[in-house]
């Protein structure tokens, strides 16, 4: 009884949703209904991967990350690049790592020098000039163009790659730029002074060594990656996307959002600005056009028996589609659903079964008190930000063979994730699941209707539209939920 009372809102919403679904699918053939539902769940899985991060981050640290869609996009591009041709990643990743290593010096520098205000600006300016010089004439366009044309092939030449000595000099430049800039941000706060020196030194050296190794191993590494079969390569691409997302997320929190906890409005102004920056970066590096990503062999093995008759047979055949509910359904989309469910389980286990999860749940309510118990909440914040970003990055890679990669995906998924969290309630994982399912199903249903056309009894012709209409219509659900229960179905925070 108590349980029913506690979850009354959720139960009522569930009943309403079931009724609405029943009405929606009323009059649809079971084949159509099952394929619409499966498509809906596929989308829901992707929305969940983005929305859960938004929700977790907001729940814990009250930061609404407008750049979360961008992390999804960056993850997709990173995974896609890894899969098709990782040469770009080797050449740029090492430079970025060196730059970050320079930045990471700041707690160390803070012990020795604290610059006056004007000198800080000077430091930034010098760092900027060094950075410009160290990437001058970097053949990024060639690297990208090669990656796009030579998809998945081993390229024996050193084409588009600069000689190792040049690259090492660029690496040194990037590190120097980071170090000079870090002198600009070094402040005499007690926290930085308290940071153990050995730890900082080990971190910086570790990053530099890693950067150099990445650079030195660029050719054998590339060969190795391109020779693995497409399934493993794809799995590794997922890891690469998640890692890239997570690393960028951690850096964002540490470098940009943390200094602004006392000015919360500016945090979201900043994240909105970042969406713009990421968008521009992607357009600059990969161009505005976008690209398709190949579906790994496991879900794309041609044979005369395709599509597979059922899921069981599919395991032997690996067809690109499989009969479910009387209609062939793309098998790769089932994989997307699987990833979504797996991640949901991982998040649930993390939150409910680990000490880290316990700290997050406690921090959602009162992070000050958690800190007063002796727990380094700042570090938890950074980790949760990284986890949320990694989920988005993973989602991006998983989405890429389904939707392709294109600069617009950031805004599109940010929008859907926002609609999801508004519906489900910010800070609630069950809410994110419910919202994602609702929006995903509505989207799939809308797509179906829009293609088939609507013909109400008094109409002469059916009205049909473009998928854009279905995309836009999900906002209607948000408007309804806002009108009825502004905090969302599961939301408690106002």
């Amino acid at each position, binding site marked *: 009884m108590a349980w029913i009372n506690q979850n009354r809102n959720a139960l009522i919403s569930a009943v309403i949703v079931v009724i609405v679904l029943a009405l929606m699918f009323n009059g649809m053939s079971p084949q159509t209904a099952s394929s619409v539902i499966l498509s809906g769940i596929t989308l829901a899985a992707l929305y969940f991967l983005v929305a859960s991060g938004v929700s977790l981050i907001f729940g814990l640290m009250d930061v609404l990350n407008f750049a979360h869609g961008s992390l999804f996009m960056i993850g997709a591009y990173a995974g896609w690049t890894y899969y098709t041709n990782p040469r770009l990643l080797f050449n740029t990743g090492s430079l970025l790592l060196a730059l970050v290593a320079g930045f990471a010096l700041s707690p160390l520098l803070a012990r020795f020098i604290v610059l006056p205000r004007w000198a800080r600006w000077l430091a930034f300016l010098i760092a900027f000039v060094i950075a410009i010089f160290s990437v001058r004439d970097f053949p990024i366009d060639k690297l990208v163009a090669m990656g796009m044309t030579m998809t998945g092939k081993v390229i024996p030449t050193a084409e588009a790659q600069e000689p190792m000595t040049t690259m090492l000099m660029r690496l040194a430049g990037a590190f120097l730029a980071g170090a000079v800039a870090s002198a600009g941000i070094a402040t005499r706060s007690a926290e930085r002074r308290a940071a153990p020196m050995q730890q900082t030194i080990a971190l910086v050296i570790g990053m530099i060594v890693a950067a150099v190794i990445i650079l030195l191993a660029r050719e054998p590494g590339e060969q190795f990656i391109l020779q693995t079969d497409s399934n493993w390569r794809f799995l590794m691409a997922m890891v690469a996307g998640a890692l890239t997302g997570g690393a960028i997320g951690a850096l964002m929190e540490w470098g*940009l959002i943390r200094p602004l906890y006392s000015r919360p409005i500016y945090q979201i102004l900043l994240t909105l*600005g970042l969406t713009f920056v990421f968008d*521009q970066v992607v357009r600059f590096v990969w161009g505005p056009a976008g690209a398709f990503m190949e579906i790994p062999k496991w879900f794309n093995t041609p044979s005369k028996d395709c599509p597979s008759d059922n899921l069981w047979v599919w395991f032997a055949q690996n067809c690109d589609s499989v009969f479910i509910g009387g209609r062939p359904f793309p098998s790769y989309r089932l994989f997307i659903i699987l990833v979504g469910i797996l991640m949901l389980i991982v998040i649930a286990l993390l939150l409910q079964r680990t000490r880290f999860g316990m700290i997050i749940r406690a921090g959602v309510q009162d992070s000050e008190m958690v800190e007063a118990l002796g727990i380094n909440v700042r570090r938890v914040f950074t980790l949760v930000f990284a986890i949320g970003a990694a989920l988005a990055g993973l989602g991006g890679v998983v989405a890429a063979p389904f939707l392709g990669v294109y600069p617009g995906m950031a805004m599109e998924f940010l929008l859907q994730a926002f609609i999801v969290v508004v519906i489900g309630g910010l800070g609630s994982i069950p809410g994110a699941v419910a919202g994602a399912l609702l929006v995903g199903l509505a989207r799939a249903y809308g797509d179906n209707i829009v293609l088939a056309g609507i013909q109400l009894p008094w109409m002469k012709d059916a009205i049909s539209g473009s998928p854009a209409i279905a995309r836009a219509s999900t906002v209607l659900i948000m408007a309804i939920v806002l009108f009825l229960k502004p905090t969302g179905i599961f939301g408690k925070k106002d």
Partner: protein
Amino acid sequence: MTKSIRDHLPYLLLLAALVVLPFAISFLTGEPLNKGIALFSQGLMIQVFILAVFALSYDILMGHTGILSFGHALFFGTGAYALGILVKYAHWSLPVAILAIIVIAALESFVIGILSLRVHGVYFAMVTLAFATVAFILVEATDFKQWTGAEDGLHGIPVPDAINPAIHRTEFYFLALAFAVAIFLLVKLFVDSPSGRVWAAIRENEARATSIGFNTLAFKVQATIISGIIAALAGALNAMWNLSATPQTMEVGTTINALLMTIIGGSGTIIGPMLGAGVLQLLGYFLNLWLGSIWQLVFGLIYILLVLFVPYGIVGTWRVKQLDWRAAWRARFARVSK
């Protein structure tokens, strides 16, 4: 009286400079008003005026009422498209179309305000962004191509010859300037009115404003409507200037532009966002010349540095510094007199 003249002098000087500007440039370059640099610089300034009004409308929410909207492009785009559709396809005359735009923008901002203002702070930003993005998707959709032109935008809006910027650039320059000045005065009027003081109370502490007995939702909706109408008017003028309405007017980038101008200039200062528009537009022009297409990226980075290090903008920082100086002077004076 002397004090008020001293306070208003910078504004009057700025206005005088803007009135003289086209003629001064024409005089300096020796070209007529409708040729070369003189013509071009007027075009640049017209854009500044339009964006200044847009930024000002944004600041009514952000700076004066403390509402953070991320969907302001919606209103700007609404103005642009409504003007285009009404004038080009419905063949309405321009003044009637503009009256209609005021009504449309008022209704639209009322609905969005009522729906979104039920939630606070970041929620509002998120919800408005969602609405604006949906509007962007819709104007780009092929379904309404016959009216919106889908991705290409709506081109060839007929504007009466007398103020057609392609024919009478200088007339349009003064139209845009007059528009900016009028809106500036109007907003000043609003901000200094009793409503404006309630807005400020909401910005400072909404809970307290509610407990004093104000219906804060009503005042916030009011601010949203006023801001929405002004933004739509700026959008309409933008459509007249370009003779077209494009999906870009609805994009998030447009909202970020407004934010950027407000932050550069200093939010909550009325003149700040307008100056911000000038800085942004002129800087953007030269950066574009210098850096090419990467200038937008540089812009984004500048924005982030500003948010991190110069949160009060030009005018805000100036005023804070001025207060500091005054305080320092006073302290010094007090010490001497003791």
